[in-house]
C-alpha cells in the first residue's frame, strides 16, 4: 500500500529535527558558542512559527490507515507544539550562563554543541507528541522527549551529584517506559488497535465511521483494566505524580538549572498531554476505571508535594516539590471522571480544557521562577533558600519578578494568571459536581501558600552580615527570557480567555 504523506503537516517536526542537525553541524564547523546558540534559538522559534502556521491551514492528517491517522495536526496539537517550542526557546535563553560556565572553572560547563543538540532532539519529541494520535507514536515521541534529558541531566562535568541524578532519572524513566509499553501491548492484545480513534471504538465507545467489527465487550475484560492501569502508571512517572515522584527532587537538584527548568515545564507538559491523549482520547470507554485512579493520584500528588515542600531548605528542591504539587492541580480536573456525572461529554471536554489551560498557566509561571533563580545564581546550582536573603534590596526588579511568579504559583493576586488557573480547575471540577475534590484543591492551595510566602519573606529579609552587595549581572538572554515570561504571566493574568480559548479546541 502506498501512502501519500502530507509534508506540510510534518513541517514543525521537520524543523525541530533539522534544528538538532544544524546545531550539531554549526558546532562542528564553526565551533563558536554564540553561533550554535543562535542556530538553536532560531530553530526553536521557527518550529513554533511553523506549528502556528500549519494550524492556520485547518486540520491536516497524515499516516492514515482505515482505523485512523497516526499524525493529526489539529488545533490542540498546534497549541501544545507552540508551547513546546516557546519553552525550549526560553530554556535555550536560560542556558547561556550554564554554557558559558564559571569564570573560575570554565572546564565544568557542559559542551555547548552537545547540550543544544540534545535539547533540540527533546523538542522534536515534544512536537511529534503534540500531533501523535496512536499509541506507538505517542510512546516513541515521549521517549524521544525524555531520552536526551538523561544525558542533559548528567552533563555538568566533574559533578557527582549531576551523574547520580542522571542515573537515578534514567533507571526510573526506563522502568516507567517499560510499564507503559506493557500496558500498550496488552491493549493491543485486547483490542487489536493502536490508533486512538479505533482503540476507543473497539473498547466500546461511541461508534464512529472507523472499523466496525471488534468485540464490543472488550472494555469489561479484567485485562483491559490491567492495561489501563499500567499505561497510566507509566505516564504518571513522567509527570512525577505521587507515588511515582521520588526521582524528581534529586534529579532537579543535581541537573544544571536550565535543564531542571525544562524538566519541570516542557517535560511535564509532554507527560500531561500524553496522559490526556491516551486516557481521554483512546481509553474514553474505560474512564470509569481510570477516573478513580486519576482522582486518587491527583489528591496524593498535590498533598504530598505541598507537605514535602514545607520542609525544604534548598531552592531547587522547593521548586521541585512545588512542581509536584502543581502536577496534582493539573491532574485534578481529570478526577471528575471518578463519578458518573463527570463522564458526560461536555464535562469531559471541560476537564480536558482545564487541565491543558492550567498546564499553560503553570509552565509560564514556573519558567519565570526558574529564570529568576538562574538570573541570581548564574552558572552555579540553586543553593539554599537562605542564600536569597536580601534580594529585594540588592535587586528589586528580580525580587519583584520572583514574588510575582511565586504568588502566581500560589494562585493569588497580583499573580492573576495563577489565580485564573485555580479558578479554571475549580470550575471544571464543579461542572462535574466533584465538590469534594474542589475542597481538597482549596485546602492544598492554603498549604501551598505557606512555603511560597516563606520564600517571598526571605527575599525581603536583610541578609546575615548585612553586606549590601550589588545585584547580580544578568546576561541578556536570561534577562530577555525572564522579561518575556513575566510579561506573558501578567498578560495572561488579565486576559486568561486567550489560553482558555485556544485550549478549548
Amino acid at each position, binding site marked *: 500500500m502506498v501512502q501519500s504523506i502530507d509534508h506540510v503537516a510534518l513541517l514543525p517536526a521537520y524543523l525541530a529535527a533539522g534544528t538538532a542537525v544544524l546545531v550539531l553541524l554549526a558546532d562542528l564547523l564553526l565551533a563558536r558558542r554564540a553561533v550554535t546558540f543562535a542556530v538553536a534559538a532560531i530553530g526553536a522559534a521557527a518550529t513554533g512559527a511553523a506549528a502556528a502556521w500549519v494550524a492556520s491551514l485547518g486540520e491536516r492528517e497524515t499516516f492514515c490507515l482505515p482505523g485512523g491517522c497516526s499524525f493529526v495536526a489539529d488545533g490542540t496539537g498546534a497549541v501544545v507544539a507552540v508551547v513546546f517550542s516557546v519553552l525550549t526557546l526560553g530554556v535555550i535563553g536560560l542556558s547561556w550562563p550554564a554554557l558559558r560556565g564559571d569564570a573560575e572553572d570554565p572546564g565544568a560547563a557542559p559542551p555547548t554543541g552537545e547540550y543544544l543538540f540534545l535539547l533540540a532532539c527533546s523538542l522534536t519529541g515534544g512536537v511529534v507528541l503534540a500531533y501523535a494520535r496512536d499509541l506507538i507514536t505517542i510512546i516513541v515521541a515521549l521517549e524521544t522527549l525524555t531520552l536526551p534529558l538523561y544525558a542533559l541531566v548528567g552533563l555538568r562535568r566533574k559533578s557527582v551529584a549531576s551523574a547520580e541524578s542522571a542515573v537515578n532519572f534514567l533507571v526510573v524513566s526506563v522502568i516507567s517506559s517499560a510499564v507503559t509499553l506493557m500496558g500498550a501491548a496488552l491493549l493491543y492484545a485486547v483490542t487489536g488497535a493502536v490508533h486512538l480513534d479505533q482503540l476507543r471504538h473497539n473498547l466500546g465507545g461511541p461508534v464512529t465511521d472507523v472499523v466496525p467489527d471488534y468485540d464490543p465487550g472488550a472494555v469489561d475484560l479484567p485485562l483491559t483494566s490491567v492495561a489501563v492501569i499500567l499505561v497510566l502508571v507509566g505516564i504518571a512517572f513522567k509527570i512525577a505524580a505521587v507515588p511515582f515522584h521520588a526521582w524528581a527532587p534529586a534529579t532537579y537538584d543535581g541537573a544544571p538549572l536550565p535543564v531542571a527548568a525544562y524538566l519541570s515545564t516542557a517535560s511535564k507538559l509532554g507527560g500531561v498531554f500524553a496522559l490526556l491523549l491516551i486516557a481521554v482520547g483512546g481509553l474514553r470507554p474505560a474512564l470509569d476505571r481510570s477516573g478513580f485512579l486519576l482522582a486518587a493520584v491527583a489528591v496524593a500528588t498535590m498533598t504530598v508535594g505541598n507537605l514535602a515542600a514545607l520542609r525544604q531548605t534548598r531552592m531547587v528542591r522547593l521548586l521541585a516539590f512545588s512542581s509536584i504539587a502543581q502536577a496534582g492541580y493539573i491532574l485534578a480536573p481529570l478526577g471528575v471522571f471518578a463519578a458518573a456525572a463527570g463522564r458526560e461529554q461536555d464535562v469531559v471536554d471541560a476537564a480536558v*480544557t482545564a487541565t491543558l489551560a492550567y498546564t499553560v498557566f503553570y509552565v509560564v509561571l514556573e519558567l519565570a521562577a526558574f529564570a529568576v533563580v538562574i538570573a541570581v545564581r548564574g552558572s552555579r546550582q540553586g543553593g539554599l533558600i537562605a542564600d536569597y536573603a536580601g534580594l529585594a534590596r540588592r535587586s528589586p526588579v528580580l525580587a519583584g519578578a520572583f514574588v510575582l511568579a511565586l*504568588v502566581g504559583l500560589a494562585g*493569588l*493576586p*497580583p499573580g*492573576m494568571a495563577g*489565580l*485564573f488557573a*485555580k*479558578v*479554571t480547575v*475549580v*470550575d471544571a*471540577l*464543579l*461542572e462535574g459536581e466533584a*465538590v469534594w475534590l*474542589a*475542597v481538597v*484543591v*482549596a*485546602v492544598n*492551595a*492554603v498549604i501551598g*501558600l*505557606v512555603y511560597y*510566602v516563606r520564600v517571598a*519573606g526571605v527575599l*525581603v529579609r536583610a541578609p546575615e552580615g548585612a553586606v549590601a552587595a550589588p545585584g547580580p549581572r544578568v546576561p541578556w538572554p536570561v534577562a530577555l527570557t525572564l522579561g518575556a515570561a513575566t510579561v506573558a504571566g501578567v498578560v495572561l493574568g488579565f486576559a*486568561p*480567555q486567550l489560553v*482558555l*480559548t485556544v485550549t*478549548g479546541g
Partner: protein
Amino acid sequence: MNAVLLSVLVVPALGILAVGAGAWTGNRRLGAVLGTVFAGVGLFAAIALAADHSGAPWSRLTWEWVPQLGLDFDIGVDGVSYPLVLLSAFLTFLCCLYTVWKGAPGGREDQLIALLLATNLGMLGVFLSFNLVLFFVFFEIVLLPMFAIIAGWGGPARRHASVKFALYTLMGSLLLLVGIFVIVTQAGTGDIIELTASGGGGLSRGTQLLAFTLLAVGLAIKAPLWPLHSWLPDAHTEAPTVGSVILAGVLLKLGTYGLIRVAVGVAPEGAEQAAPTLAVLAVVAIIAAGLICLAQTELKRLIAYSSVGHMGFVLLGIATLTEAGLTAALIGNVAHGLITGLLFFLAGSVKDRAHTGELARLGGLREVAPGLSGLLGFAAIASLGLPGLAGFWGEAFAVYAAVQRDQTLWTVLAVVAAIGAALAAAYLLRMLRLVTHGPPGEAVAAMSGTRLRAVEVTSFVPLAVGVLAVGLLPFIVQAPIGAAVSGILQAISR
C-alpha cells in the same frame, strides 16, 4: 455616572502607580504625598457616586471578560453597597493621611500607603462587584497587601500573626470560590443581580444549601464568626495602627457584606435552611466575645475581641432574613467601621505614648492626657451601644428583628444577645476604668507629648463626627439601604 463608577476603582490604582513612580525617581516622600492625594480623590469619587441614586441599581457598568469562566467585569453600586464603599474610601484616606503626616514605624511610608491603596482597591471592588467571579477576584486581591502591611510594619509577633491571617483568609476565600462555582456551573451565570431576582437561578434546595454552606463558611472566616475567629485577635494586635483600622473598619465587612449580597442574595433557599444555625453561632459569638473581653489584659486585643461580638450582632441581623434584620446588619457594619476604626486609632496613640498596651500598666489617662482620654471614653461608650451614638441602632434592631421572628428559638436568641450587649457595656466600662480612671499607671505617668497632635485631631475628629451623625440621624444610612434590602429578600417567602 459610569465614569465616576470606574474612577472609584481606577483612582486607587493610579495612586499605587504614583507611589511607584516616586520610588523609581528616588523621591519617596513625594510618592507618599501623591498616594494620599489619590486616596483623597478616590474619596471624592466615592461621594460623587451618590449623585444619582434613582435607579435600581444606581449605576452599573458591564464588560465581558472571560466568558468561559462566567466572569464579566460587571460593577455597580446600590443602597446595600454604597455606605460600605464610602466607609472604605473614607477610612483609607484617613489612614493614608495619618501615615504620611505622622510617619510609619520603621519608615517606608510610601510602601505602606501603596499597600493601603491596594487593599482599598480590592475592598472597593468587592463592594462594587455585580458578578460572582469578579467578587472572588477582588476578594483575593485584598489578601496579600493586608498580609504585607501586618508582616512589614507589625508588632513583635508579626510573622506568626500575618501568616495566620493569610492562611485563614485564603481558606475562606477558596471555600467561597467553590461555593461560587457550585452556583455558576449550575445556574450558568455569575450575574448576582439576575440570580437574586430569580431567587437563585432555579437551583434546587439541596444545591442552594450546599452553595450557601460553602459561601457562608468562607465568608464567616472573614467576618469573623465564632469559632472561626481565632486569626483576628493576633492580626489586629500585631498590625500597625492603620492596619488595625482598615482590618476592623472595612475588611471584616467583606464577610458580612458578602453574606448579604452573595450568600443570601443568590442562594435564598439555602439561607433559609441554614439561618437558625447561623443565628445560634452569632449569639454564641456575642456571649463568648463578651466573656473573653472581660478577661483581656491588653488594650488592642480587647478591642479586637470586641469586634467579634459586634460582628455577632451583624450576623444575627443577617440570619433573621428580615428587612429589619438586614438593615440593622448594614447599619451595624457602618457603625462598627467608624467606632472600631476610631478605637484602634486611639489605642495606637495610647501605645505610641505609653509604649505598652497592658491595661495593668495604664490608668489615670484622663489626668495626664484629657483629650485622648475623652475621645477614648466617647468611642467606648459608642461601642457599647449608647442610644444616640452609632453603635446603638445596629445592635438594637438586630435584637428587635430576632424578636419579630416570633418563634421560641429566635426569642431566646434575642434575649441572650441582649445579655451579650450588657456584657459589652461591662467590659468597655472596665476598660475605661483601667485606662482612664484611677491614679496614673507607671506607663502613663512616664508619657511624653500628652496633648493630641494636629494629625491625630485631623484623623480622629471626622470619625467621631461620623459616629455622632449615624447615631443621631440613622436615616442617612438607613434610607438608601431599605429599598435595596427588600430587593434581596424578595425571593424569601414569608
